[in-house]
Every structure is written in structure tokens, then in C-alpha cells.
């Protein structure tokens, strides 16, 4: 039997995975091992599956994903730090039949944009919010985030986060889940194939809610790693995330169809 060459393998009938056309060809600017790229991809796959390429307006934040618009191949706006929910509110109110989503990190959504986050959820705008929580400010070089865990070292908590001095990690997702204006609230991860599948199902549900004009915000937190900011290898950062982040930021649905999920 003749030996297989690469050319023999690269054939349409052998294709098992294809990049969605709703991701551009531009190389991702994220660090190797970071969860942002996967999070981008599942959102764009969902929008392609829903055939919403021409009906979507996304809002990028300030932070690592400030350049999300370079990679997401739909109409995109770039917001001031923390203000993406305000932009999205106006876009959705003025174009109620469009798919509108924001993509925000923890500094953007849970620190400087706390007011916008709370009020967009309280008004029950029919938008999707994707919240990437990696417990650190990645873009500016590893400073403390509102979601940084107690004791966790960052460049602005070099001796570990002292909660008496620096406050506690903010569970924004639990906070907004209790507002009547949120319809679907879920916390997911994208560090393993099965986590990615679950996260994608949640993102799909969020956009389905928007298509079906369900009352309120669909809010997906994705707990992610920041191997550069945490100063670990990608593999170690994922292990550290499972051991430290997940116990504090528990994965799973928090609110479904407007009702808080009973965990007991």
C-alpha cells in the first residue's frame, strides 16, 4: 500500500472541521492557550447556524477583546470601556429585529461598566451579553480585576488579593440573575471539548431567546484562563482554573426561562 501524503488527506470528503465564515481570516491576536478565540468561534458558529450573518450587530469592549471586531465577520461597533450595554441598548431599541450582542471582559463588565451592566439587565433589554471572566486585566498587563480570587497575585495585588484591603471577588452573574430583567443566565467554560459543546449550547439558547423575543437579557459568563496574566503554561492555567476558579465561579445554568435554577 502506498504511503498517504498530506495532499491525499486534504480533500473535501475528509473534512471534519471547518472554520465558520463568520470568523475572518485574520490571525487572532490572543495569546496561545487563551480561551477568547474559542469563545469568539462558538458565538460566530451559532450566528451562522441561525443564518443571522446579515442581521447581527456586535459590540466589542475595551480589554483584550477590544479588537474582537477584527475577527468577528459581522457588523461590529467598538465601545468605550464598560459602555457596551449602553450602545447595545440603543441599537436594539432602534433595530428591534436585529441580533444584538456585547462581548465584554471582567474589567469592562464588572468594574467600570457595573452601572451599565446592572441597568441593561434591569431594563430587560432583549440582547445577548457574553462575559469573559478570567480574573485579571489581560490587555493592560495583569492587574487585579473585580473577579480576581482572594489571595491571587496580580501586578496590582503583588502579595495576593487581600479582601480586607481590596474587596471581594464580584459574582456579577449571580447578582444580575436576581434582576427580573434577565431571562437566561448561565456560567460556562471553554477549556475542554465537552465544555465547549456545553458553552455553545448555552450561546445558542441565548440567541434563540433573542430571536423569539423572550423578555430580558440572555447573559452567558465564560470562565476562562489567562495563562499570560496568571504567568502559567496554558495547561497549568487550565488546571489552576478548574481547581481555583470553578469552586468560586460554579459552572452551570443559574437562571433559565426567567426562573432561578434550584441547585438543591
Amino acid at each position, binding site marked *: 500500500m502506498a504511503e498517504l501524503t498530506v495532499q491525499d488527506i486534504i480533500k473535501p470528503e475528509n473534512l471534519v472541521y471547518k472554520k465558520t465564515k463568520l470568523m475572518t481570516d485574520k490571525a487572532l491576536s490572543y495569546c496561545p492557550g487563551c480561551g477568547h478565540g474559542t469563545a469568539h468561534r462558538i458565538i460566530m458558529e451559532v450566528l451562522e447556524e441561525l443564518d443571522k450573518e446579515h442581521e447581527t450587530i456586535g459590540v466589542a469592549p475595551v480589554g483584550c477583546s477590544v479588537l474582537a471586531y477584527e475577527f468577528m*465577520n*459581522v*457588523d461590529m461597533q*467598538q465601545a468605550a470601556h464598560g459602555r457596551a450595554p*449602553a*450602545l447595545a441598548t*440603543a*441599537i436594539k431599541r432602534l433595530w428591534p429585529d*436585529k441580533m444584538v450582542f456585547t462581548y465584554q471582559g471582567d474589567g469592562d463588565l464588572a468594574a467600570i461598566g457595573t452601572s451599565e451592566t446592572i*441597568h441593561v439587565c434591569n431594563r430587560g433589554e432583549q440582547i445577548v451579553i457574553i462575559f469573559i471572566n478570567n480574573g485579571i486585566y489581560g490587555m493592560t498587563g495583569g492587574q487585579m480585576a473585580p473577579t480576581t480570587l482572594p489571595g491571587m497575585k496580580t501586578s496590582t495585588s503583588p502579595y495576593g488579593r487581600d479582601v480586607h484591603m481590596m474587596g471581594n471577588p464580584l459574582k456579577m452573574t449571580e447578582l444580575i440573575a436576581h434582576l427580573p430583567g434577565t431571562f437566561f443566565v448561565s456560567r460556562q467554560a471553554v477549556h475542554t471539548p465537552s465544555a465547549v459543546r456545553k458553552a455553545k449550547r448555552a450561546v445558542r439558547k441565548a440567541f434563540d431567546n433573542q430571536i423569539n423575543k423572550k423578555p430580558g437579557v440572555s447573559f452567558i459568563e465564560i470562565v476562562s484562563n489567562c495563562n499570560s496574566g496568571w504567568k502559567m503554561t496554558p495547561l497549568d492555567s487550565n488546571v489552576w482554573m478548574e481547581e481555583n476558579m470553578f469552586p468560586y465561579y460554579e459552572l452551570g445554568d443559574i437562571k433559565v426561562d426567567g426562573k432561578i435554577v434550584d441547585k438543591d
Partner: protein
Amino acid sequence: MGELRLMKGNEALAEAAIRAGCDGYFGYPITPQSEVIEYLMAEKPYDRTGMVVLQAESEVASINMLYGGGATGKKVMTSSSSPGISLMQEGLSYIAGAEIPCVVANVVRGGPGLGDIQPAQSDYFQSVKGGGHGDYRLIVLAPSSVQEMSDFVPLAFDLSFKYRNPAMIVTDGLIGQMMEKVELFDPVPRLTDEEIKEKYPWATNGKPKGKERRIITSLDLDPHRQEEHNWHLQAKYQRIEEDEVRYEMLQCDDADYIIVAYGSSARIAQKSIQLAKAEGIKVGLLRPITLWPFPKKPIHELVEKGIKGFLSVEMSAGQMVEDVKLEVGGQTKVEHFGRYGGVIHSPEEVLEALKKQIIGE
């Protein structure tokens, strides 16, 4: 002739927004401009024209709603008063950088800080010199009557869309709270979504089939490209300076002296000019209608004509006077007069100041 009504400046502004085909108003209450959002909420423009009205959680949110809504090609507007406008400066800088049309009205009150709620004109620097970060300009219109509070809304929208640049209407508590006769213009229908898509191909309202997606951003991390973007902005600002200067001149033809005043101060100065005339003093009024672009040429022409002195009258400690001085270029006397912190100068005080500071009596 349009419909005649007795209205407050703030109400005329709100009614004009509906009639101008505004798609969305996003605002936050603050004295002395709360009548704008109160009027809109009572008037239910969403029933009249489909216009969206939303009370935001802050001025910060309001201006960013304008950023988001304006970036989709819709006509969006907000209004506030000085402290609230300060909160909007970050958003205005982004909007100017991303070249998004929108209209912001500032019903100025006394400052600094929380100041008071009485009329002032002390936000001139903030309005015309760029209150936020970066090299940018706002197109700034200064109404001096309730009629102009109505008329300048469609004008501001037109200029804003013509140049893809935020436009600001700078007025104050006096004009906002005052009622005058206003002839309302006939309503213009809102553009349909299809019309918006056709007219504004840059707008992000869903990627068109067979075309590239649109991106609205003020970010470009490459300094050379960012510089090029700034050149583009500066070229646009130069076109605006060439084509959009608006001003009014009263009794300037045989004047020995000129009062330069805008908005409320221009109204007060008109009375001062009448009082001066009765005393045999020949004073004219130059009223800038666009504060930016500033009417430089008429000042040069007046200097050429041999005007003996300019008195810049504003309810501030002296802000516009710097622009007047710049244009006069030391060729004749330029002085500032004005009460401020919420105090309004009287027509008599202005005349006294003219006599003392300019004529030298």
C-alpha cells in the same frame, strides 16, 4: 406659516426633535433642562412617529446610547446641563473619533462643579475647544431665542450627518426656561430602515449581502494609520470652517464699537445697543451662531473698517474673548465683560462696561 405656539426653549427643542424625524432620544434629568425629556415622555413620540425615548441610568449611558444608535445610521439626540455634559465628554471623544452623527444639547448652568442651576455661558471652552481627549471638534450652534431652539435641531442633524460629526446645541437656563412665540416647522418623516441603509453605507445595521462587514471604532493601534485618520479629521474640520460659519450682525454698518455676544448675552446686548443709541453711542452687535466654526472673517472685516474696540460679552469669566482677541490680533482694543456663576448681566451693566472698558469714559 407653521403652527404658532408659546413654548419654553426646552419644550421647543423636544418638539423640534420629534418633527425633525429624530429616531431616538436618550437622556437623564438635570435642572434646568429636564423639560426636554419630560415633554418627550408626555408627548409619546413613539405613537406619533415611532421615535424611541429612553431615560438612561446616567449621562454616561446616554451619550454611549447615542454612540451605539448613531453608529447604526439613526438620528439620535440627547440633552443635559453642564455637569451632565462633563460626564459625556469621554463619549463625545469616541463619537468624534468614530465619526458618528448625533445631536447633543447643553442647557448651560453655573459652575464649576455642581455650581448652581441658574443660566451661564461658562461651558464655551468645553464646547468649542474639545472637552474630551484627542484632537477633535464639535459643530456648535448657539440659539438665542426659543424659535432658534426649534430651528437649530434639524440644522444640527443636517450638519451632523453631512459631515459625520457630532453637533452640539449650546444654550443656557435662560433660553431653556423662557417661553416665547415659536413657529414650528412642518414635521419631516423619519427615514425608513431601507432608506437609512441606502443613504449611510457606513452604518452598522447588519452586514449587507455580498458586501464587507462595517466596523465602527475610534481605535487604531498603528500610530501612522492613526495619524492618517487625524489628517482626515482635520481636513474635514477645515471644510466645516470654510463652509459652515454662521453669524448675525446688527447695526454694524456705521458702528464705532462692536459687542460680540452669543445666545442669551446677545439678546441682552441688543437692549444695551438700543440704550447706547439713545445716548448717541454707535455700537453694533456681532452674534456668532456657530461657536465652532467661529466667525473669524467678520471680525477681520470689522477690524479693517476701523472699529475702535470690541467688547466680548458672555456669562463667563471670559472664554470667547480669547477667540475674539486671536482674530483681532492686537490691532484694536478687546475686552471681556460678563457676570457669571449663574448671575445674568443686565443691559445697563453691559452698556456701563462698554463705556468704561472700551470707550474709556
